[in-house]
C-alpha cells in the first residue's frame, strides 16, 4: 500500500514520469508472455498503441481546445472501448490520465465514460485514482461519476485487498455531502468486520443527525451492526425503504455490448450461474430488477494461475464444486450484486452453511428492494406484470426458498403488503407459493397480517382460488410443523424458528399460532363449503388440510389436537361421493390414534390436552357410528335433531336408516351392485336384507375391497365386530 502511494508521487509535481514508471513496470512484468511479445511486434505501427502512448506521455497543461491530436487519439480509444472493451493496461493509463487532470477537467468525464473493461480492472489503478480524488481539484460531478464507475465495475476489479487497505481513506469522503450516498454504497461492498470501528460509527451517526435518516447511511450502519452489534446501539428499522440503486447508466449499454461481442469470455465467466439470463433479451427493459445478474465476472485468471499470490479471497464464480467450496469457505468473496446468488446452487449452499449474517442481510436488502419496486411501486401501473421476466424471477425465488427450506424475511414483508392490494389472480401460483413459505407469525399479529386480507380474497374469489388458498395454507401448516419438529430444542420449551434469524418463540406461543391458523382455516372451510354448495373439489382440499391437522401429535410431536368444526364434519359425512366419506373416516381414525397416544403420554411428558377435545371427538365418533352403522340417525343427544312429527311428515320411509352404509347416497350404488351379486336371482330389490348379520359382513368386505381403507381402519378401530350385529356402539375413548 505504501509503495503504491509513493508511486503516485506528490500530486502537484510533474506527474507524467511516475505514471510512465508504473506503466512500464506493468508491461515489463508481463513481457515474458507470448501474447504480449506478439503485440509488441506490431506496436510500432498500431495507431491505438500510439494513442495510448500519447495519453501516458502528454505534458501537464497541454491545451484541449484546438488540439487535434488529443481529439484523434481520444476517438481511437473510444472506438476500441465501445467495440472490444479496454485491456487492464489501457484502463490504468486512461484512468491515470483522466484523474491526474493533466489536460484539465474537460476530458475527464469523457474518458471515464469510455472505460469499458474487456476483462478485468487492475486494482492498483483504482487505488491510484482514489489518491487523485484526495487531491481535490476534480469537480464534484466528475468525482461522483468516478465512484459510480467503480461501483459499476466493482465485480471486475481483480482484487479487493488494497482497496480494503485504504478503507479509512475512502471513508473520509463520506463527509462530502454529494459523494456520501455513493461512498456509502462502496463502503458497504468493502466492509469487513475489522473495518468497523467506534470512530467510524460515531462519524456516521453524526452525519445521520445532520442529513436525517438517509437510507444509504442506515444501510451501512445496519451492516456495521451485523458485524459489531456492540458498537452500534442505534435501533434500525427492520425494513429500510430502499437500498442502494444501480448507478450503471452511463456504461450499461456499452458493457452489455462488449460482453455480448466477447461472447466466449463472457460465457466462461458466467458458466457457474445456471440459466439466469436469457441472452436473446438484452433490450431495454422496464423490469430492471427482475433479470438476475449473472454471478459476476470476476474473471481473475491470474489469481488462478498464481495461487500463492497475496490475494486472500476467492470469488464465488471460480468455484465449481462443493469440495472447492468447502476448501475455500473461509475466504469467499461475495459478488457486489447479491441477486446473482439466487441463480447459483453453490452460492446458496454457501449461504446456508455460513453463519455469516452479512451475506443474508445483503441478499435480503436487495430482494426487498427489487420486490417492492417491481410489484408494489410500478411505473406503468402494472400493465406488463404477467411478463415472462416477473414469472421467472418469482419462480427462481421460490426454488431458492425451497433449496434453503426457508423464506427470506424481505419476501415475507413484501407479501404482507402485497396481499393488501392483490386482486387474487396476478401471479397466483407464485404468490401462493411464497405465502406458504412464510415462517410462523406470532398469534397476536397473525390476524392482521394474514387473516384479514386472505379472508376478503377468499370469500369474493372463485372456487379455484378457494382451493388454491386451502392448499397454500395446508403447505404453510406443514412447513410450520416441520420446522417445529426439526428445530425444537431439547428442553421442549424454546424453538428457533429460523436458522438464521435467531427469532425464538416459546412452545406455547407456537401452539397458539398453529391453533389460530387451524381455527382460521376451519372458519374459511365451513363458510366456503356453505357458499359453494359443498363442492366436492373444495371439500377434497379441506380434507387434505385436516389430514395434516389430525396427525400433529404423532407425526410432528406437537402436543396439540384440533378437531374440525361441524361445518366441515357434516358436509364430509353426508357428501355424495364415497371418497370424501372414506377420507373423513381415515381422519377420524388418525384422530383416535393421536388422542389415544397423547392420553397415554400426557402424564410423563407434562402436557395437557383439553377434555373438551376428547368430548368433541367422542361426539363425532358416536355420530358417525350411529349414522353409518347403527341406523340411528336422529336420536336425541346427537348432532342433528328434528321433531318426530316433522320427520314423519316428510314421508321418508325408515328415515333413521337413510345414512347407513347401505342407504348413504355415496354408497347406495355399491349396495345395489352388492345386492345383485349376492342374490342374482332376485327380482325385487330389498336393500335392507344386506343388514342381516352375514351379508352385512360380506358387504363390508366388499366395500373394503373397493379400496376404502379409511373406512376399514375406522371400522376396525372403533367397532368391535362381536357386538356389531347387535347394537354395538364401539367408540371407546373415555374422557
Amino acid at each position, binding site marked *: 500500500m505504501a509503495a503504491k502511494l509513493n508511486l503516485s508521487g506528490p500530486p502537484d509535481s510533474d506527474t507524467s514520469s511516475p505514471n510512465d514508471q508504473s506503466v512500464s513496470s506493468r508491461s515489463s512484468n508481463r513481457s515474458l508472455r507470448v501474447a504480449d511479445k506478439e503485440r509488441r511486434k506490431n506496436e510500432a505501427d498500431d495507431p491505438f498503441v500510439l494513442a495510448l502512448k500519447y495519453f501516458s506521455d502528454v505534458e501537464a497543461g497541454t491545451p484541449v481546445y484546438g488540439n487535434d491530436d488529443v481529439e484523434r487519439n481520444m476517438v481511437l480509444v473510444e472506438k476500441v472501448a465501445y467495440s472490444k472493451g479496454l485491456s487492464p493496461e489501457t484502463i490504468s493509463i486512461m484512468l491515470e490520465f483522466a484523474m491526474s487532470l493533466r489536460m484539465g477537467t474537460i476530458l475527464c468525464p469523457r474518458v471515464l465514460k469510455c472505460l469499458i473493461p474487456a476483462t478485468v480492472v487492475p486494482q492498483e489503478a483504482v487505488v491510484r485514482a482514489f489518491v487523485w480524488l484526495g487531491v481535490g481539484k476534480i469537480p464534484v460531478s466528475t468525482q461522483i461519476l468516478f465512484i459510480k464507475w467503480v461501483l459499476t465495475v466493482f465485480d471486475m476489479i481483480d482484487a479487493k485487498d488494497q482497496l480494503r487497505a485504504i478503507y479509512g481513506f475512502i471513508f473520509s469522503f463520506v463527509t462530502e455531502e454529494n459523494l456520501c450516498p455513493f461512498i456509502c454504497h462502496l463502503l458497504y461492498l468493502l466492509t469487513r468486520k475489522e473495518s468497523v470501528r467506534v470512530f467510524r460509527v460515531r462519524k456516521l451517526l453524526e452525519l445521520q443527525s445532520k442529513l436525517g435518516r438517509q437510507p444509504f447511511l442506515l444501510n451501512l450502519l445496519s451492516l456495521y451492526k451485523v458485524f459489531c452489534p456492540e458498537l452500534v446501539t442505534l435501533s434500525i428499522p427492520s425494513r429500510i425503504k430502499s437500498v442502494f440503486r444501480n448507478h450503471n447508466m452511463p456504461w450499461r449499454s456499452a458493457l452489455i455490448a462488449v460482453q455480448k461481442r466477447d461472447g466466449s469470455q463472457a460465457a466462461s465467466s458466467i458458466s457457474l450461474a445456471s440459466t439466469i439470463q436469457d441472452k436473446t433479451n438484452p433490450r431495454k427493459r422496464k423490469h430492471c430488477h427482475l433479470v438476475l445478474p449473472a454471478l459476476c465476472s470476476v474473471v481473475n485468471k491470474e489469481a488462478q494461475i498464481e495461487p500463492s499470490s497475496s490475494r486472500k479471497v476467492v470469488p464465488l464464480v471460480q468455484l465449481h464444486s462443493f469440495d472447492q467450496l468447502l476448501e475455500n469457505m473461509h475466504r469467499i468473496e461475495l459478488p457486489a450484486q447479491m441477486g446473482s446468488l439466487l441463480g447459483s446452487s453453490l452460492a446458496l449452499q454457501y449461504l446456508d452453511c455460513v453463519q455469516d449474517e452479512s451475506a443474508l442481510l445483503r441478499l435480503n436488502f436487495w430482494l426487498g428492494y427489487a420486490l417492492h419496486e417491481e410489484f408494489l411501486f410500478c411505473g406503468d401501473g402494472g400493465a406488463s406484470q404477467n411478463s415472462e421476466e416477473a414469472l421467472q424471477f418469482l419462480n427462481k425465488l421460490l426454488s431458492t426458498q425451497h433449496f434453503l427450506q426457508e423464506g427470506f424475511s424481505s419476501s415475507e414483508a413484501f407479501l*404482507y403488503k402485497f396481499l393488501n392490494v392483490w386482486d387474487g389472480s396476478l401471479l397466483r401460483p407464485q404468490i401462493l407459493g411464497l405465502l406458504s413459505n412464510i415462517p410462523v407469525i406470532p398469534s397476536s399479529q397473525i390476524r392482521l397480517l394474514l387473516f384479514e386480507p386472505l379472508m376478503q380474497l377468499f370469500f369474493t374469489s372463485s372456487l379455484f382460488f378457494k382451493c388454491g388458498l386451502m392448499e397454500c395454507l395446508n403447505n404453510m401448516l406443514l412447513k410450520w410443523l416441520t420446522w417445529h419438529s426439526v428445530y425444537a430444542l431439547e428442553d421442549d420449551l424454546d424453538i428457533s424458528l429460523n436458522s438464521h434469524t435467531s427469532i425464538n418463540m416459546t412452545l406455547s406461543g407456537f401452539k397458539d399460532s398453529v391453533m389460530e391458523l387451524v381455527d382460521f382455516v376451519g372458519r374459511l372451510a365451513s363458510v366456503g363449503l356453505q357458499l359453494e354448495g359443498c363442492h366436492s373439489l373444495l371439500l377434497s382440499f379441506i380434507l387434505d388440510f385436516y389430514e395434516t391437522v389430525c396427525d400433529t401429535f404423532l407425526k410432528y410431536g406437537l402436543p396439540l389436537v384440533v378437531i374440525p368444526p361441524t361445518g366441515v364434519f357434516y358436509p364430509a359425512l353426508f357428501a355424495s361421493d364415497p371418497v370424501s366419506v372414506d377420507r373423513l373416516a381415515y381422519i377420524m381414525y388418525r384422530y383416535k390414534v393421536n388422542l389415544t397416544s397423547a392420553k397415554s403420554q400426557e402424564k410423563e411428558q407434562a402436557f395437557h390436552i383439553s377434555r373438551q377435545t376428547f368430548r368433541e371427538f367422542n361426539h363425532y365418533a358416536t355420530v358417525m357410528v350411529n349414522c353409518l352403522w347403527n341406523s340411528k340417525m336422529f336420536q336425541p343427544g346427537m348432532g342433528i335433531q328434528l321433531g318426530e312429527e316433522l320427520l314423519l311428515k316428510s314421508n321418508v320411509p325408515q328415515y333413521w336408516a337413510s345414512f347407513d352404509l347401505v342407504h348413504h347416497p355415496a354408497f347406495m350404488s355399491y349396495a345395489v351392485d352388492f345386492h345383485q351379486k349376492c342374490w342374482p336371482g332376485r327380482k325385487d330389490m330389498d336393500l335392507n336384507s344386506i343388514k342381516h348379520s352375514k351379508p352385512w359382513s360380506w358387504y363390508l368386505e366388499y366395500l373394503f375391497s373397493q379400496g376404502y381403507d379409511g373406512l376399514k381402519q375406522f371400522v376396525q378401530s372403533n367397532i368391535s365386530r362381536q357386538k356389531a350385529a347387535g347394537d354395538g356402539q364401539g367408540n371407546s375413548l373415555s374422557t
Partner: protein
Amino acid sequence: MSLLKPFSKLPGLCTANILLVESEEQFQQSLADALVEETAVTVNVRLAKSLPLPMENEESRPRIDLVVFIINLTSELSFQSAEASLKYLDPGYFLGKVCFMVTNARNASVPTERLDAVRKLAASLNCPLLFAEDQTPDGVTNATERLLTILKVAAGLVPMATALYLSNLTRCTVPPDIDQPSFD
C-alpha cells in the same frame, strides 16, 4: 335528489342486475362486456358516470342488486366523484349491496394517503374493497368473476347466503401500519 332504492322493485327470475359507477368510464365498459357473458344467470349491467341516475330511466331500470364504485387510485377526481355519488344511495344498499373496486393500486404515482382514504371510506361503510388489475385480460376476467360471486349472493341466487352475511365476511377493515412486522 332521488335516492336509488334496493327494494323498490321486484326481482326478475334468475336475473341479477349490477350498476357500475366510474367517473372515467373506461374499466366499466370492459367489465360490463365480460359480466354479460355469464350463462348461469342473466346479468344486466347498468353503467353510470356518477350518481344520481337520470330520472327518465326510472321506469326501465330494473332493481339494482349490487352497486360497484370503481376508483382509479391515480386520479383524485375519481375518488371524489365516487365519494360524492354515495349520498344518492338508499341506506339499505349499505347492508351488503355496495362494493368498491380499486384499480392502479400498485402504481408508483399513487400517494399512500389516497389508498388509506379509500380504505377508510370502505371500512366506515362496512363495504368490501376489491383490488383489480384493469390493464391485463386476466385481471379483467378475474375482477369479473369476483364481482359475479358477490352479485349472485346479493341477488339472492345463492342458497343459504345473503348479501349482509357475505359482506360481514368480506368487508374492509383499516389495517394498521404494517411496515414492520416486529417479532418482539
